[in-house]
């Protein structure tokens, strides 16, 4: 309903910088995330590759995507990317959440408040990256919450702490960006397609990737946007609807006051009949 979402401006912007040129796919982050958040396993059958997780699940906030990519000279590259909620600044979930259960924190991350979430699934269906999932039993949307309790206690998020190759680092946003740019400069000669992903995308995301190849090789959209349907919904339909509704009520009030002078009787003078119904209003009519 609210046209303007109460988005806390990030006073202490933090970020997690994931360097895919260092990740060896050991999946320590997957286990550490489950350990800290006490998430039970959700076993999937062997799916033809090391990556047994195909998608997020109510108790899987993060998993490592493993793509084998053939290179031009017939060799193979094995690209790993730890995937999780991106914590976008221009966040579709924050916009669509009807209960203000998802909002930005002082660190610029997107936090889902379990108490206010009713499990309506708006965020699940509109997330730009399709990450948030719905726990139908607990009626809660589930996603990575950037280990907010740890961050507020001055600790690193669980995945950043457990990463043994230093692929996942946590810190102030501009410090992380500095590291990313340094690394990019070093990698560019060997990896022409290397780039930073998340610095500008969607107004800057809480997770910043240093990709060694094009985004789709890592299962990421080239330039992610909040779905246009969300924009139409939140910035056109809703405001317009509210204005129209307000207008209707005012019109009815005005009509009632101005029309007060009329007697209850049928107005003989206007024999030709005044009919009923405003341009939007209407008399009763049975469905024929």
């Amino acid at each position, binding site marked *: 309903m609210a046209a303007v979402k109460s988005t806390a401006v990030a006073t202490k912007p933090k970020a997690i910088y994931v360097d895919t040129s260092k990740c*060896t796919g*050991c999946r320590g982050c997957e286990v550490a995330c489950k*350990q800290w958040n006490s998430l039970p396993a959700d*076993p999937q059958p062997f799916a033809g590759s090391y990556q047994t997780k195909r998608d997020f699940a109510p108790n899987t906030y993060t998993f490592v995507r493993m793509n084998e990519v053939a290179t031009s000279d017939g060799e193979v590259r094995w690209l790993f990317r730890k995937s999780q909620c991106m914590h976008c600044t221009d966040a579709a979930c924050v916009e669509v959440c009807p209960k203000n259960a998802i909002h930005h924190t002082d660190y610029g991350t997107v936090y889902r408040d379990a108490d206010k979430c009713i499990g309506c699934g708006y965020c699940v269906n509109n997330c730009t990256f399709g990450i948030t999932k719905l726990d139908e039993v607990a009626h809660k949307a589930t996603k990575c919450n950037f280990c907010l309790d740890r961050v507020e206690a001055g600790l690193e998020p669980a995945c950043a702490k457990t990463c043994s190759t230093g692929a996942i680092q946590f810190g102030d946003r501009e410090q992380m960006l500095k590291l990313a740019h340094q690394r990019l400069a070093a990698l560019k000669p060997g990896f022409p397609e290397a780039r930073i992903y998340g610095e500008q995308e969607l107004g800057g995301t809480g997770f910043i990737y240093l990709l060694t190849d094009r985004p789709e090789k890592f299962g990421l959209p080239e330039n992610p946007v909040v779905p246009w349907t969300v924009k139409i919904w939140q910035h056109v339909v809703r405001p317009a609807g509210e204005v129209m509704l307000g207008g209707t009520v005012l019109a009815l009030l005005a009509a009632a006051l101005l029309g007060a002078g009329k007697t209850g009787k049928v107005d003989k003078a206007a024999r030709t009949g005044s009919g009923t119904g405003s341009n939007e209003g209407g008399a009763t009519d049975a469905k024929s």
Partner: protein
Amino acid sequence: MDPRFTRTSSQADLYAPLRPGTDIAFIGGLINYALENNLYFRDYVVNYTNAAFLVDEGYSFHDGLFDGYDPQTKKYDGKSWKYAMGLDEKPLKDPTLTHPRTVFRLLKKHYSRYTVEKVCAITGTSKEVYLEVAKAYCATGRPDKSGTIMYAMGATQHTVGSQNVRSYAILQLLLGNIGVPGGGVNALRGESNVQGSTDMGLLFDQAPGYMALPPAAPEYANLKGYLDKETPKAGFWTNKPKFFVSFLKAMYGEAATPGNQFGYAYLPKRDPKKNYSYISLFEDMYDGQIRGAFFFGQNSAISGPNSNKENSALDKLEWVVISDLWETETAAFWKRPGAKPAEIATEVFLLPAAASFEKEGSITNSGRWIQWRWKAVNPPGEARSDLWILHNLHRRIRARYAASHATKDQPLLNLSWQYGLGEEPDIEAIAREISGYDTRTGQQLTTFLNLADDGTTVGGNWILGGMYPPEGNKAKSRNTADKGGIGSYLGWAFAWPANRRILYNRSSADLHGKPWSNDKKVIWWDPVAGDPLKNEHGKWVGLDVPDFKPTVSPSDAGGSNPFIMRPEGVAGLFSKLNEGPFPEHYEPFESPTANSLSTVNLNPVVKIFKSPMNERGDAEKFPIVVTTFRLSEHMQGGGMTRNLPWLAELMPELFVEISPTLAKARGIIPGQDVVVASARGEVKAKALVTNRWKPLMINGKEVEQIGLPWHFGFMGIATGDVANKLTPHVGDGNTLIPEYKAFLCNIRGVK
């Protein structure tokens, strides 16, 4: 370099595939490359290795065989694998390295056969990649550079496993990479305390501290005979009598007196003709010789080779005791798929053990750091620590023999067991006994140098000497300072020996005691340091505890002999192992091709078991090379990981990695069930078709390769067939470690 393109390879700057079992060819080629292109570190090689030593005339090598080989006994006599001695009974040397019988020349001649073409034909690596590897790695031969070789079971689990590691040592010595930071030959061992359990001598022929357990042979009849035979004339091992007597005092305490050779007779003497190592143990168990067995946290049904045979061996036991945290496949061998419990008469005891954080104790990592573990919580239910189990089992067995006066029971009754009267043994007392104390004062020793051979000191394991000095257990120290930034962390825990972090670090300095390069300095000679009262005129100082006599100056006698454990004080490019002084490439027990370097296909000293269930596969029936491997998500026999939901969901079941060409050839689609068969068994797995695997050109023929993780078994959450049903009962020429990493198989899809 790895037969498989692994997740680590994905981040490597350079990945070189090679056929499993051809490491010596690969490294031999690098040795040749370093020598041919003069990339070796000459000063280091001349002064710190036995390159300049002349070898006895009797030494020879021809068509894959060294001198003195007896085909009947399949052994070398090794009589002439020694230095040529001068009149002064000292080895003859030629520092100019020109004499044809210098170790250097013989080495150069031996590896001149390992040309790049020949090597690439054997290993299947492409020439371009191989030359890139050679160029990149041999560049570390410069004084200011260093390179490290890290390896695991991929190098050791071969019939030529020991020589594989020897070839790493030779390459590193030529490039001057031993004793310097960022150098070394580093094993990535697989269990949290496998280093500690090896240090404690839990091997059939060992006493703690890498000392030999005496065999039943005339020359070992008494302690004096043992010490004369086992103590070298020079080098640090000349102290062995102090270490061995202190060990006997630790074993038999008061009952170990000079009179009874400190209880030497009580030690069990093994039959020298018999081999009691892992494979022979199960062979003998299969033959019914072994009636009872203990398994302490070991899941042999999964991790042992030829598991069909090893499981059948377990069936023959009268009783077996298993102590573990889970009901493993070894504990449940009597109800394994296909077994008939009614016909298995073994009495099985499964004891619940405590986990690492449910008990106190120290463990030693691959870097020889002995770290203490504190107890966080009690074990669940009635689980107990292995310490508790061993302590209370010993007391009960001993009680049964209390009344006996038979001599055969004296070894048990005279065993020293001073760990308190309660059920829970006093672990600090055990740690103190291991580290060593003076029997007269009860004072903890500060170093193993204070151990004595007259029975006045107790030292359970000399290499841990000094871990528990009077001021307390150094394994518990947690100072995070790293002086000099080379990662020595001298204040963190205790490293054996004597807290040295980089062994042979004397070789990081030149003949004058000055570091070869500032970047690679560890210790150096400081003429000013030293305590004048002890008329010390200079001392070795630096960023690590010197692995050298601190006050011996570089110019003193032996002042430039960094390899203090070896009699000649210098490293052994030429060094005796069962198969010879230089590593030579031989094909694995089951190979798709003949040896193209000589007519000797299999390592000539390997023991072949002519017993049932030990068939040998040939390339016709089994054309595909297979190697077993481990996953980062599972651990060894799988007990500790396949019972954990978070890990079971990451790697849920057994799969086999195959190349797209092989898949097409066999009509196998990704994810399909396949059967992998070797001469010894069959295994069902899911197919993981990946272009990380490619067939390799081996001696002109295209050979397919596949990879099988071996953690899986029928117990636990993540289950699967036992990959080790396929592996052979054949082992390395020196250690008899099984050849898991290279054998032959065939594969077919299951409709």
